[in-house]
Structures are given as structure tokens and as C-alpha cells.
């Protein structure tokens, strides 16, 4: 096609030509991000955090436990150290609570195969992480990601030893660091039963619904008040 012919074509389609070019340009720049790109973006965001200390209120909701709402401090240090500490009282901390920190997943992404599983009903991108190492405790981890804000909103991790953990996170003040203001951590609990010969219980008629307490999911909810980020934390604190 010569220059003249091109001019004729553009001349004929003149009124649409800029719209088409703009549309093509838009498509090129808004193509769906690949799973790897999303992971890298989140990782870059989380890598800004070397350590943090957060204060919050922890609520334990397990069928067979009645516990008061506790004031806790959560300490994190790169790459995977995490401690939930009740400074004055007693708190039942579930196994696998290290997973309340999503940074743990992104520390060594090379250890996983990432599968893009599309979007859920809420428009969150679903990525499935499969460990390359057959001996790893984790079997599968599913991340639900808010692509726009580059945030992990929800995760579900299945392990060989300790069942399935689920984590839901709400963000507000510490969005730029990818740190949640509220987390709800769900975990499997096993039956709890002690012989009455040991406990010598008083039968006040309140323990008749024992079967309802079996094999339920427990949750731990932490509402964070504030974070102190990258101010340095002594590793000794994690040895408690």
C-alpha cells in the first residue's frame, strides 16, 4: 500500500482512526497481570517490612474455650519469625498461628509452583501455590488477591499435620505496607475431654451438649491498634 492509498484509507476512516488507535493502546496497557507479576508486586510491597511490633485485641473463639478478650503484642521479624505475646495474662494461641503473617508465604516464592485460578465472585484474583518440595508440611495454599491495591485479602492453607488454616484480612491504615488492621484466623480443633474422675466437676446442667463441641473450627480474631514498623526487634524475644 502506497502512502497515497494509506492516506485515502485514513481519510475514509478518519473519524474512527484515533479511537481505534487509542483502544489498541488501552488494550496493550491493561492486559491482565500474570500470576508472577502479581506475586512480585505484593512481594515488593511486603519486603518494605523488616520487622514490626503491633498491639491489638485478641478474641479466641473455640467451642470448648471461654476466654476473655486479651490485649496482645504481635512481633514479626524477617524472614519468618512471629510471636503473639500476651504481656500480662494467658492466651491460647493456636498452632500454625505463624501463618497470620502473610509475609511468610512470600519469603521464598521459588519454592512454589503458582497456578492462576482466575477470579472469585467478589472479583478477587485467585492464585494457588503448590510446594515443589514433596516433604513440605504445606500441601496447598490459595491466595485471594485484590489486584487493584496489591493486597492479599484472604488465604487458605492446607497442611499435612495440622489441617486447614484460613486467614481473612481487612486493611485500612497500613495499606501501603500491606499490613492488616484486622485478621481472622480459622483453624481446626480436635476434641477436648478430660475424665470426670480428674476434674471432679460440679454438674450444674450446663455440660449436656458435649457432642456439639466436637471437631469444630476455632477462630482467633486480632484487631490491631497500631504498628511500629522497621524500628528493630531483638531476636531473643522469639525464644519465649
Amino acid at each position, binding site marked *: 500500500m502506497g502512502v497515497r492509498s494509506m492516506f485515502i484509507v485514513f481519510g475514509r476512516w478518519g473519524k474512527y482512526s484515533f479511537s481505534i488507535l487509542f483502544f489498541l493502546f488501552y488494550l496493550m496497557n491493561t492486559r491482565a497481570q500474570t500470576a508472577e507479576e502479581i506475586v512480585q508486586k505484593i512481594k515488593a510491597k511486603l519486603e518494605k517490612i523488616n520487622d514490626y511490633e503491633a498491639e491489638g485485641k485478641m478474641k479466641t473463639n473455640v467451642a470448648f474455650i*471461654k476466654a476473655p478478650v486479651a490485649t496482645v503484642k504481635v512481633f514479626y521479624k524477617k524472614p519468618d519469625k512471629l510471636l503473639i505475646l500476651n504481656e500480662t495474662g494467658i492466651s491460647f494461641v493456636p498452632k500454625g498461628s505463624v501463618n497470620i503473617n502473610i509475609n511468610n508465604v512470600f519469603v521464598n516464592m521459588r519454592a512454589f509452583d503458582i497456578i492462576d485460578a482466575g477470579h472469585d465472585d467478589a472479583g478477587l484474583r485467585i492464585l494457588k501455590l503448590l510446594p515443589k518440595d514433596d516433604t513440605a508440611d504445606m500441601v496447598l495454599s490459595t491466595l485471594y488477591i485484590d489486584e487493584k491495591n496489591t493486597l492479599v485479602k484472604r488465604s487458605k492453607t492446607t497442611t499435612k499435620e495440622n489441617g486447614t488454616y484460613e486467614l481473612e484480612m481487612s486493611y485500612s491504615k497500613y495499606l501501603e505496607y500491606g499490613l492488616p488492621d484486622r485478621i481472622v484466623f480459622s483453624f481446626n480443633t480436635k476434641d477436648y*475431654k*478430660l475424665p470426670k474422675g480428674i476434674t471432679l466437676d460440679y454438674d*450444674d446442667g450446663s455440660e449436656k451438649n458435649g457432642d456439639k463441641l466436637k471437631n469444630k473450627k476455632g477462630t482467633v480474631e486480632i484487631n490491631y491498634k497500631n504498628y511500629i514498623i522497621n524500628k528493630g526487634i531483638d531476636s531473643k524475644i522469639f525464644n519465649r
Partner: protein
Amino acid sequence: MWKLLKIELFKIFKRPRTYIAFGAIAAIVFLFQIALWFDGKTYIELILSNIDTSFDFSEQFKGRLLNGYFVCFAVLNILLIQMPLLVALIAGDAIAGEANMGTLRLSLTKPIGRTQYMLGKFFASSIYTVLLLLFLAVLALFGSMLLFGTNDLVIFRSTSIHQMSQDDIFWRYLAAFGYAAAALTTVASLAFLLSVFADNSIGPIIATMSIVIVFTILSEMNIPLYDRTIKPYLFTTHMVAWKGFFYVRSDEEGATIKGSIENLPAILKSLSVLLIYIFLFVSSAIWIFRRKDILS
């Protein structure tokens, strides 16, 4: 009446055997505290072994769990089963001891009615019971608080775990000791009743111990037939209701409601049963004694 009560209390605290009970309580509490001081973590691990697959228990957690309030609860759990036997030592001796020494007829020659005399004896036995309980409270509660410090209290029931924050515990112990006083007074009134029938204090003491042991075993058995027919009427079933002050209510999300008691009506019902037993035992003792031919 007050003078009579003072005389009876003087008699009780003049006897060396009165102090056996105080010595026994001190020995048991100290032995228990020493055992938990040196090997308490093993005891804690045994209790936690049921849920250690679901939760992480740090050394700090175990150390805090083994606090004075927890130790006191463990001591009371064991000792309040044995204490009725110590109470029976004095209450069982109230009338039978006088008969044995041949002083009963002499005492009744004084210008006091038999009812007044019996009430004086009963109140003196009850005061001894309360003093014994206070002694236990000082050693088990304050002693344990001093040795092990204070923290939240966690109670392990058969199918549930109840945790109370440390500022929500002390009043529960006051209520529990108050209730335990009523429970032990029930045993004292039983021993007092049996004491009327004997001329030797060993009989009512052993009879009271036997009744308490048999009833306690029946109360702790989990057989549906007994649950419905016998257990609700045994005073030993209701004697453990002091623990009800440590059973808490929770909100919909499982959080402990501060200052709550899971089933206060059940505790009050148990308390009523004990008070009825005390009234029945004491009034029966007085009724029988008023008609009794005093020969010694």
C-alpha cells in the same frame, strides 16, 4: 447463749485433738504446694496434653497458668473432699464425747434448756468448721498467691475450659469459701446428729466418714440411673457446688463475660438443699435429744 457458746468453744480448743485437723490441713497444703513448686509443669503438661495438638503452649504460658489462683483451686479440689472427715472429728464428739466422759448429765443439771444446750454445741462445732476453712483459705489461697504469684485463672472442666481474668477471681474465692462453709456445716450437722445416738465419739465419727465416703462415690459415678434417682438427693452432690462460682458465661463469640456465673440458680438450689439438710439434721438431733433418757 453467748456464755454457753464461749464455754463450748473453750472445750473444743482446749482439746489437743482439735489441732490435729489444723495440722493435717497445713501438711496437705504445704506438700501440695511444694510438689507443684518443683514439678508443677508436669502437672500442667498432663492437663494440656488433651489440646496440645491444636494449640502452642510456650514455657511462659505454662508458667503463668501455674499461678496462685490455679494452685489454690487444685488444692481445694482435693482437700474439700477430705475436709468433711476432719470436721466430723469435732462435731461427732459434741454429745457422744460428753456422754463418754460422763459429764453430759452434769451439764444438763445447769439451768439451761436442752434445746439451748444443743444449739450451743452445734454453733460451737460450726464456728470450729468455719475457722478450719479460714485456716485453709489463708494457707491455700494467700500462701499460693505468695508462692506462685497471680495471673488469670483457667479451670479445666470435663468438656470445656473456662478462663477468668485476674481481676475477676478473688470475689469468686470469697463466694466459694462461703459456700464451702455451708457444705462443711452440713457434714458437721450430720456428725452432730449421729453423736446424739452414741456414748462414744468414735462411733459417730466413723459413721459420718462412712456416709460421706459412700455418698461421695455415688455422687461422682456417672450412671444414668443414679443421675436421675439418687444423686439429686445426696448432700455430697451439692457440696461441690462451690466450683460453680468458677464456671463463667460467655458471649456469642466465646469471650468470657466478666463477673458472670454460668448457672447461679443451680448453685442457689444446691445451697438450699444443703441448708435444708442442716435444718433437718440439727432439728432431728434436738428433737431426739429432748426425748432422750440421759444416763451418763
